[in-house]
């Protein structure tokens, strides 16, 4: 059904609620990726909240390894969000 009869102030409240819900979900969705002796933890905002580098990591290879690890984390984080959204969508107004 359409929501054409909802007053605009109610619609604004609904939008604010929606954005708050999005923000909360993004902040609480945490993804950790470990590869090449580097561990990265991010939220879906996206915000990097932790980076751990193993003692064996060479300083000359660190930038590329860190870049790869971060990119993988962002990719997994996005996929995680989409999967969670798919579940929620499936449960909405069945």
């Amino acid at each position, binding site marked *: *059904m359409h929501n054409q009869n909802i007053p*605009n102030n109610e*619609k604004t409240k609904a939008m604010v609620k929606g954005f708050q819900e999005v923000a909360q979900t993004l902040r609480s969705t945490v993804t950790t990726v470990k590869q090449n002796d580097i561990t990265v933890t991010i939220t*879906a905002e*996206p915000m990097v909240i932790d980076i751990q580098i193993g003692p064996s990591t060479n300083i000359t290879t660190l930038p590329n390894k860190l870049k790869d690890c971060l990119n993988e984390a962002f990719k997994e984080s996005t996929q995680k*969000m989409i*999967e969670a959204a798919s579940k929620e*969508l499936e449960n909405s107004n069945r």
Partner: protein
Amino acid sequence: MGNANETIQDVQLEAQQNPSNLATRFIERLSQKWDSLPPEKRVYFTQLGLMVAVQAVDTLTTYAAFQTVPGAMEQNPVAGFFLDKGGMVALGLAKMGVAAGQITAMELLRNKMLNGETTPINNNIMRFWNSVLTAVSVNNAAHLLMK
């Protein structure tokens, strides 16, 4: 294309077999359920759609298929900025952001039009929405694409 009887298990199975289809299937399911979602859920899923947009380029066509706002948002100032600064990659991302922004603004504009209230002020509201959402989209995409 997805079908209405598809379950979340089907979606997840396909996601494991072909991750690049995950975003597309999500958008297809969203388009099927769009009319039944309450306003706050439309905002929620539209924002998630921004993440989808930066992940899979082909979702753009699906976005365009079910959003109904005509082309007024092409004058989006943020999109223009990124076009000037970032070339084709930025243009693509900005356009996806615009498409997603149109979805969020769709109900707002539709109500205004139905009430005969399509004034320049309302068009500016639309542009504002699109600017914000495009900025969010490009910000997220930048993290994914910068190498």
